């Protein structure tokens, strides 16, 4: 469980997060949604210690962010940052191999090689293993990065808007893969999503944020309705239910 207690964050005079207290249960996909500037990515960065915590405390199980060793935390929690355009000229296999760094500090063992091979197989990357990242498409590159995170073998996986720049096929395949990681490997995935409909379809929990605060939290089937959309996004879009999923009409 990730527990967030009284977390506030400011950049200069601008307040990004206002006294956020919430809990993210173990297992399944939890989606952070909200309009631009709601503080979703900042909250994710704070959990992943990409930004130093200013006020409040965050615990990942028994580990306290900012107090526990970075190497130990890296064996429990990983983050896929927003994709930078910068891609080092690594092969897919080398990139996935970096996922084992928290365990081997750059000196791979036979066990690490096995984990890397498993990750490559699971994400259908065997054909690309020796190709360099800059020769891959956006979707393939994203898959390679997620395979690296999978090789890191952490209980908690954080993803910051991983659907950016993906077409609908690559996006769906990514969300299904994440679901599979939760079901088969009992991962806890926290994901920042732009599109509330993707969250509604694939997430087990939704945390809706606005202006640096959590507005509401719960199962998508229970909380996604036009009142929520009005509340969080300040627009009066109708909400329909298709195959048990509440969808917001644009």
């Amino acid at each position: 469980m990730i527990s967030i207690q009284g977390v506030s964050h400011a950049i200069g005079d601008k307040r990004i997060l206002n006294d956020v207290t919430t809990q993210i249960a173990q297992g399944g996909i939890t989606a952070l949604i909200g309009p631009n500037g709601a503080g979703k990515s900042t909250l994710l960065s704070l959990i992943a210690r990409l930004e130093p915590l200013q006020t409040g405390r965050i615990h990942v199980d028994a580990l306290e962010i900012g107090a526990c060793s970075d190497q130990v935390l890296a064996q429990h929690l990983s983050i896929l940052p927003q994709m930078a355009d910068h891609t080092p000229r690594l092969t897919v296999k080398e990139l996935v191999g970096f996922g084992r760094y928290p365990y081997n500090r750059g000196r791979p063992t036979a066990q690490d090689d096995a984990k890397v091979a498993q990750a490559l197989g699971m994400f259908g990357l065997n054909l690309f293993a020796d190709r360099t990242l800059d020769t891959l498409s956006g979707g393939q590159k994203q898959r390679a990065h997620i395979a690296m995170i999978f090789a890191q073998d952490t209980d908690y996986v954080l993803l910051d808007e991983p659907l950016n720049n993906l077409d609908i096929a690559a996006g769906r395949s990514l969300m299904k893969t994440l679901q599979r990681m939760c079901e088969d490997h009992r991962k806890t995935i926290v994901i920042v999503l732009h599109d509330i409909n993707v969250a509604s379809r694939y997430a087990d929990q939704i945390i809706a944020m606005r202006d640096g605060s959590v507005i509401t939290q719960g199962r998508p089937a229970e909380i996604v309705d036009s009142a929520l959309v009005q509340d969080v996004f300040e627009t009066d879009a109708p909400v329909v239910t298709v195959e048990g999923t509440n969808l917001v009409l644009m």
Partner: protein
Amino acid sequence: MNRRLWGLFALLLLSCAFYMLWGVRAPWSFVLPFRGAKLGALILVGCTVSTASLLFQTITQNRILTPSIMGFDALYLLLLSGAVFWLGGMTVAGAPPQIVFLVTASALIIASLLLFGTLMRSVRGDLLRMVLTGIIFGALFRSLTSFLERMIDPNEFAVVQAASFARFTQIETDLLALSAGVSGLALLRCWVIRHRLDVLALGRDTAMSLGEPPRRLELESLILIAILVSVSTALVGPLAFLGLLVLSLARLITPSEKHAILIPSAGLIAAITLVGGQAVMEHVMALSTPLVVVIDLLGGAVFLALLLKGSGR
């Protein structure tokens, strides 16, 4: 990959033999120590320049900028001119060169941490702004240096002037033992942290996710860069494009992103370029063209090509 490194090593031995043994007319007892000291200095400079450039490219995540392009060695010369200006040229020239070197190198470490440590954070990820900042820094340090040089007494100016140009024929061999020790330690440290540098090259956030806090490693790298640049600048003067040239060659000859490959390969290529180039210039061309002109011409062309191709990242 390993075979290519051994090939480079063989080529280096060949260049060394060529440099040491070609056209010997004086007694061996004079030639060997005389050329040997210069040979050692050239190899040392090659290793320090290439490793400093590689570390800099890793922490700034681009393939175009090197410490020289960002004005590190110009800053070293500025500090030296400042010392002559405020302390007087006779104090600086009279002091043992080892002391002058240690003081200037320490000043460079502090200055580069202050300047580049803070600036790098604000312009990181924006290649264009980095290039511009580097060019402005370089120009600023060079103009400040020449301003100070104009203010000081012409006799004292001679002290600075000797240091301001790249020179391979008159190398400060007095400093050789000290700088070999200092840069040997710095290079050893670079080798020890090679796996951590590989992780840092993936980007700051990914490095953090893998349990490698980037900030500490970046500061350490900046200190190592300042030490390595001090050594090469003190020994042979500023070398604008050598680092860029040899790193581009290293990535071509040993295509890998691992520092365990790139550190030795770039070091070997730099040493071959300097030793082989200097041997050709001294023994064949009879010193008609300074080696640094050739290196900067080639390196400058590589810089332009990289910039135009837009493959800096």
